[in-house]
């Protein structure tokens, strides 16, 4: 009988205990006692490298990480990746000197060069050339053969300032005697080329114009995605999106970075970084390479951002 009482008491105790588990651990944290956050100041100022949102932010972060590591090793200082949603924001950062080096789109370069003296540093070389194209893509099941067949459809633009993703398709629509607002039933911005590709592949858009470099890269990484898409038009070549510096960047830093970029193909770590970005080398480039883009922008005229 005594044992039974003990067992009874013990089981009640167990039941009570199990209601309290798991027990909280660690020191007491006072949630109501709020203190200002200390902002630590770093001793070494990092090199700030901006990458325009040609591809999605996460894709950019993954693709450019080897380059950041390479540059950090070469320059002997940390390199910080800066991303923004739009090309315009990146241009603003370059103009304000908030970033030192930037990978920008061609039209963003043309605009930055015109507005505040953005300078060319180098250009990636792909398939032996420093040009790229705009691909007009549709879902593989679409009967469209050209821009004319996309009338009344949904069209995905990439960035408001993108040459391949917005300027060129707008140009094509204008050539058909219309404007995107009237020509398409609806348009939207994806702010990156890979997402425009996915928008078409998923049927969200009936068509999109994308950076040929990005398209080739995405399709080579994800062949299944390529199966769902068809390129129905290729633009004339445009100067490839360059690496630029702001007008205030010290010439010595610009030269150091240019030298590090040009020397990548000679360096094992550099080659690995180039491979990650799917480019062959960084080469010098002249402003004249972007004249065709200037001509296109002039042709298209000012667009609503």
């Amino acid at each position, binding site marked *: *009988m*005594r044992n039974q009482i003990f067992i009874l008491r013990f089981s*009640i105790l167990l*039941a*009570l205990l*199990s*209601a*309290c*588990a*798991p*027990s*909280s*651990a*660690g*020191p*007491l*944290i*006072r*949630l*109501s*006692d*709020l*203190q*200002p*956050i200390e*902002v*630590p100041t770093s001793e070494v100022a990092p090199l700030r490298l901006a990458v325009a*949102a040609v591809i*999605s*932010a*996460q894709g*950019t*972060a993954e693709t450019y*990480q080897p380059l950041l590591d390479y540059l950090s090793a070469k320059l002997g200082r940390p390199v910080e990746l*800066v*991303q*923004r*949603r739009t090309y315009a924001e990146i241009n603003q950062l370059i103009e304000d000197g908030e970033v030192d080096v930037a990978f920008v789109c061609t039209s963003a370069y043309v605009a930055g060069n015109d507005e505040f003296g953005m300078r060319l540093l180098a250009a990636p070389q792909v398939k032996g050339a420093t040009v790229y194209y705009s691909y007009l893509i549709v879902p593989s099941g679409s009967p469209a053969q050209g821009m004319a067949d996309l009338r009344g459809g949904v069209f995905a633009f990439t960035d408001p300032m993108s040459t391949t993703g917005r300027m060129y398709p707008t140009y094509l629509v204008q050539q058909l005697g219309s404007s995107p607002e009237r020509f398409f039933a609806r348009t939207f911005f994806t702010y990156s080329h890979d997402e425009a590709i996915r928008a078409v592949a998923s049927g969200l858009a009936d068509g999109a114009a994308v950076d040929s470099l990005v398209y080739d890269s995405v399709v080579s990484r994800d062949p299944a995605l390529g199966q769902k898409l068809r390129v129905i038009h290729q633009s004339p070549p445009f100067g490839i999106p360059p690496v630029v510096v702001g007008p205030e960047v010290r010439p010595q830093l610009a030269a150091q970075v240019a030298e590090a970029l040009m020397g990548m193909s000679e360096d094992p770590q550099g080659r690995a970084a180039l491979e990650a970005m799917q480019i062959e080398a960084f080469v010098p480039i002249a402003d004249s390479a972007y004249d065709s883009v200037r001509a296109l922008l002039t042709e298209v005229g000012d667009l609503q951002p």
Partner: protein
Amino acid sequence: MIVRRVNPWFERFWAVAGAVSIRTKILGIVLGLVLLLGLGVVIQVRAALTRAMEVQLEEQSVSAASDLAARSTDLILVNDAYRLYQLLLETKANNANVRYVFILDSEARVLGHTFGEGFPIGLAEANQVGPNEHHHTLVLNTDEGPIWDTAIPIFGGRAGTARVGMTEAVVELALAAVTGQLLLTTALVSAVGIGAAVLLTWILTRPILNLARAAHAVGRGDLSHRVRRWADDEIGTLAEAFNAMTDALARAAEVQREREALRARFVSSVITAQEEERKRVARELHDSTSQSLTTLLVGLRALGDSWGSGDGQRHLDELRSVVGNTLDEVHNLALNLRPSVLDDLGLPAALERYAAECLKRYGLRVDLAIHGLDGQRLPAPVETALYRMVQEALTNVARHAQARVASVLLERHSESLRAIVEDDGHGFDATAVGLRDHRLGLYGIRERAELLGGKLTIESERGRGTTLFVEIPIPRSETQDE
């Protein structure tokens, strides 16, 4: 040892449980069961609910943090602080259990949080997650109680860490609500239980109380009482057994009564026969023997007159004296056997005659007082019995009491007749002396009294004389006018 420990407990329990009524016992059982069950259920439900809700809380915390991590990645990478802040607020607003949300960058600096002005010390460092872990959940000990803190790496930790803290307050609220409801239910069930117990008690105790009443009635001698069999249960069986017992008792009493009646009739007939025999013998003695003796006496006198001289004369005188004495004795014998005056003149006259007889024979003075019998004759058996009783009583007084005076009082009441025989003798200890053993005369008196439905009471004390009370019921109609 256990037995020794248990016994005082059991005794204490029994002192309480044994002293209360069945109603209280049943109420105690019902309430005890309901309360025990209620308590057990509350404890169990609370435990189970707490476990379930904590699992849910952890899942919610992980889910909210995962969602936050996925949605904040791009915002962090493109440094969209405003939208990031909006996302944090939205995450907090979308889940009532979220106490706080914040984002640490890859350097563990706070990128955004929902605390408003300032940030709690030590919170950022309190929970850490590796870049390859999916999440890490801890229960933090805070001044607002336990907080389920989940840390999830954003973009493999390169974009930082998302942290979500869930409060247990909602668990406490739910527990309180459920506990309240369970207690209310227990209270309601207890109320119903009390009602049921009262009903049950009534059902149970009513037949028992009936049985007790019936047992009292039977104890008083009312064998006609029967109990109703309320139900087909053990108490019903008891009631049946009780009724069977009462039946058996009633039959036994009936048999007893019949035997008594038989015996009474027998005794009565014996007494009647005795009286008849005495009467016959007395008459025979009176009519035949006395006449013969008288004739003999007359003959002897005539013989003496004609032959009367000398020795012969003296011899005849002696014979005459013997015959005269014998005649007296026969007379007395006849009188004692059956005073004809009782039949002829009634009880008062017979008693007066007997009182005179006592004085003459025993030297005992008897004061006789008779009230309420003027001109009335009682039924013959009553007169005979009373006469015999008084006769027996006076004989006792004369033989044993060494009394000088005895008084006899005969009182006729409306429904009874009372006879009191008192003497001034030495008395005896009425309580110490069994009537049956030593006072056969008294036993005879009692027998006669009881045959007539009456009773005998004796009061006596050593040195204080003796009083006999005899009371015999006589319905008024049974008296006969002379």
